């Protein structure tokens, strides 16, 4: 009667069914960390490319990260911005609360202030999925910077991890915006009317069907995300907007961007959006007399964000190393000479630099290191103590967990539980 590893690792509110009897349940005390960790005044010496990610700190829920049991980082101050009710706040005031927005982003924000919460939600969804996908790897998508720069220097290095963050957060924005369109939370958009035929596997030739329900308006989401997210890169050179509360270091510093970095980021942003578009599914529902299915109503829906994360992860592992060609204009080209002529597909993730090993803490290049990370002694994968701890070995801690178990419902209306104590060893990297 134990939670699966994944549940325990994520510390999500977990409740696993007993294999013996479904009526018994153990309620595992789990922690949902709702905090962004601030690591003090870190320097934010970069372009405003990902400044909008700071939006993730605003809104109802926040980005979570596991506490480190024996980390050199210690427990850091958890801060959380209060949720914003966009309807009650004046658009100008609202938009000013976001540091580091570009001119174009600020324009989008003030014209449709509701959208900013969706974008904030999208960034969050993206970051949480990123942490889920990388929970077992040396780089675990950890939020180490401040609100202006949640990922620290990783955002400036142009490696595979940078590519993944760009893609997943950009996909997150499309997802969040599109979903709130379908839910009717935004006035500018609603459900879409699809064209064409649904695929053969959902509707047979002889079946009667029609488009109906609410098709996710992914095109609107993509358009808006493109306008908002990409403007960070497109307009970053002219982003020195004098706002009442500018993040001091980010905007005052002259921007030094390596050629090709903008192109790479834009490509990965687009790749993230294409992940959602290519993952659209047709769903149908039957009508008519019970189970007769004389008429089908079909609509197109986005995949779940978990599926998008899985897809992004596989694109990450097949990432394409590129080099910059600066003849007439800056263009990216595959580094591998054998396939140099092949066009880079729009859903491939591109990177320019090899990744570091992420083993040891290095504040300068924004690496947290794997010290204190929980590892799996028996696995052979990336979460194994051997690989995760980079040969440094691991420490063993005994965790005594007291929880209610064998809960039974007694008519009427009581739930009686026993108190169970489990002792488990957890292994953390030295």
């Amino acid at each position: 009667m134990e939670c699966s590893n994944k549940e325990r690792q994520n510390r999500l509110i977990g409740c696993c069914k007993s294999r013996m009897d479904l009526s018994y349940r153990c309620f595992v005390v789990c922690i949902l960390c709702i905090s962004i960790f601030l690591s003090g005044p870190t320097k934010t010496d970069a372009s405003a490319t990902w400044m909008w990610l700071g939006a993730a700190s605003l809104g109802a829920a926040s980005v979570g990260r596991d506490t480190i049991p024996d980390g050199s980082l210690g427990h850091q101050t958890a801060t959380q911005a209060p949720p914003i009710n966009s309807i009650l706040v004046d658009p100008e005031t609202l938009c000013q609360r976001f540091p580091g927005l570009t001119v174009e982003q600020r324009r989008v924000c003030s014209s449709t202030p509701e959208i900013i919460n969706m974008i904030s939600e999208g960034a969050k969804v993206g970051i949480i999925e990123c942490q889920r996908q990388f929970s077992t790897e040396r780089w675990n998508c950890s939020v180490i910077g401040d609100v202006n720069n949640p990922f620290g220097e990783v955002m400036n290095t142009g490696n595979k991890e940078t590519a993944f963050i760009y893609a997943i957060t950009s996909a997150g924005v499309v997802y969040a915006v599109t979903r709130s369109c379908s839910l009717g939370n935004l006035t500018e958009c609603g459900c879409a009317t699809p064209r064409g035929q649904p695929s053969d596997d959902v509707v047979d030739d002889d079946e009667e069907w029609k488009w109906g329900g609410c098709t996710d308006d992914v095109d609107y989401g993509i358009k808006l995300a493109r306008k908002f997210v990409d403007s960070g890169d497109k307009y970053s050179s002219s982003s020195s907007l004098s706002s009442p509360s500018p993040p001091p270091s980010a905007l005052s510093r002259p921007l030094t961007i390596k050629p090709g970095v903008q192109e790479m980021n834009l490509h990965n942003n687009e790749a993230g959006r294409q992940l959602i578009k290519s993952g659209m599914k047709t769903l149908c529902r039957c009508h008519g007399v019970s189970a007769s299915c004389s008429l089908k109503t079909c609509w197109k829906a986005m995949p779940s964000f978990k599926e998008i994360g899985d897809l992004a992860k596989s694109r990450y592992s097949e990432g394409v190393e590129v080099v910059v060609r600066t003849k007439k204009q800056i263009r990216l080209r595959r580094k591998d000479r054998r396939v140099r002529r092949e066009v880079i597909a729009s859903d491939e993730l591109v990177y320019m630099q090899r990744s570091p090993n992420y083993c040891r803490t290095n504040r300068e290049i924004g690496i947290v290191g794997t010290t204190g990370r929980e590892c799996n002694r028996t696995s052979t994968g990336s979460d194994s103590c051997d690989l995760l701890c980079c040969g440094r070995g691991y420490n063993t801690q005994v965790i005594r967990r007291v929880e209610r178990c064998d809960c039974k419902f007694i008519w009427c209306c009581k739930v009686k539980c026993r108190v169970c104590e489990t002792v488990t060893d957890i292994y953390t990297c030295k």
Partner: protein
Amino acid sequence: MKLEWFVAFFFIPTASLLAKKTTAASSTKWWSMVLSPSMTNSVTDTQGIINIIDPKLKILNKRQRRLVSQNRGTLAAINRAVKMAVSECRYQFKERRWNCPTFNKDRGPESLFGKILNSGCRETSFIYSITSAAVTHSVARSCSEGTIESCTCDYKFRGDSGNDWEWGGCSDNADFGHRFGKKFVDSGEKGRDLRHAMNLHNNEAGRKTVSSEMRRECKCHGMSGSCTIETCWMRLPTFRTVGELIKERFDGASRVTMRNDGSPSDRETESSFVPYNPSHKQPASRDLVYFENSPDFCERNDKFGTPGTRGRECNATSLGVDGCDLMCCSRGSTTTEIKVKERCSCTFHWCCKVKCEECTSFRTVHRCL
């Protein structure tokens, strides 16, 4: 350091006093035995063991000499044990930055594994554990092979047999191996400081790993393939298994410190130390312990006497410690193609020849800068 060792060399009884300062000096001298090509099996020798091993005897302390002369044949077993330990250590660490280097300088206790023994890091604990395990293993096996006069097969497994099998044959004498190993290996550890507590614990961990991994092995009797009755005996694990188990403990080794709550340290119950970090688990009897962090072994380190990873071969595609990135400590690596000549497409010709062709292949080798 050299002088102190020199003094210890001649005044063996006082070595234990010096041991506190000279660290590994007296307790590990017997490891130098690995340098002698082969020891005469003293059972067959009539002149007595003392004469045969006289030139090498200096590497043993008084108690060890007494033990060896009381149990004739053990010297050959110990000699084999040290060799086994060295090769197993090399094998287990071939993909690590510290790859168990050994030195052939024929002098001093530091001759074999080098200065790393003077520190108290994880690697030190592995060396102690594996050598101690090797002695237990080798002596226990020698008992059942009949090469030690004072012990035989272990016949304590009698009586309680299963339905279709019974005890018989010759069980490896792990009890004797454990007892002898404890007396012989631990004899030099007389201090009361953390280093000695650590060495004693790791020695015992090695011995326990051997004796707790004994397995029942059986043989069928009866008509061909019928297996109407089986005879079973207890057999030692292979030394590869022991090495792997100790290596696992090495990865999870606990950093410890002296117990400072004033309670008297008790060597028998091994409670003289506590985990360095109080939230960590108290090391169990088979866990390895250490008290000093290891260096990263990237560069030459004179304090630990390690050569660094320059020139080491690495694996370009691996993410682990054998990968070029980690092995070379981000210094980068060179890639060369080497010609490998191998015998290939061998065929057997009646009777009795094997004819082979010679094939040349190219192998890409990455070496750390």
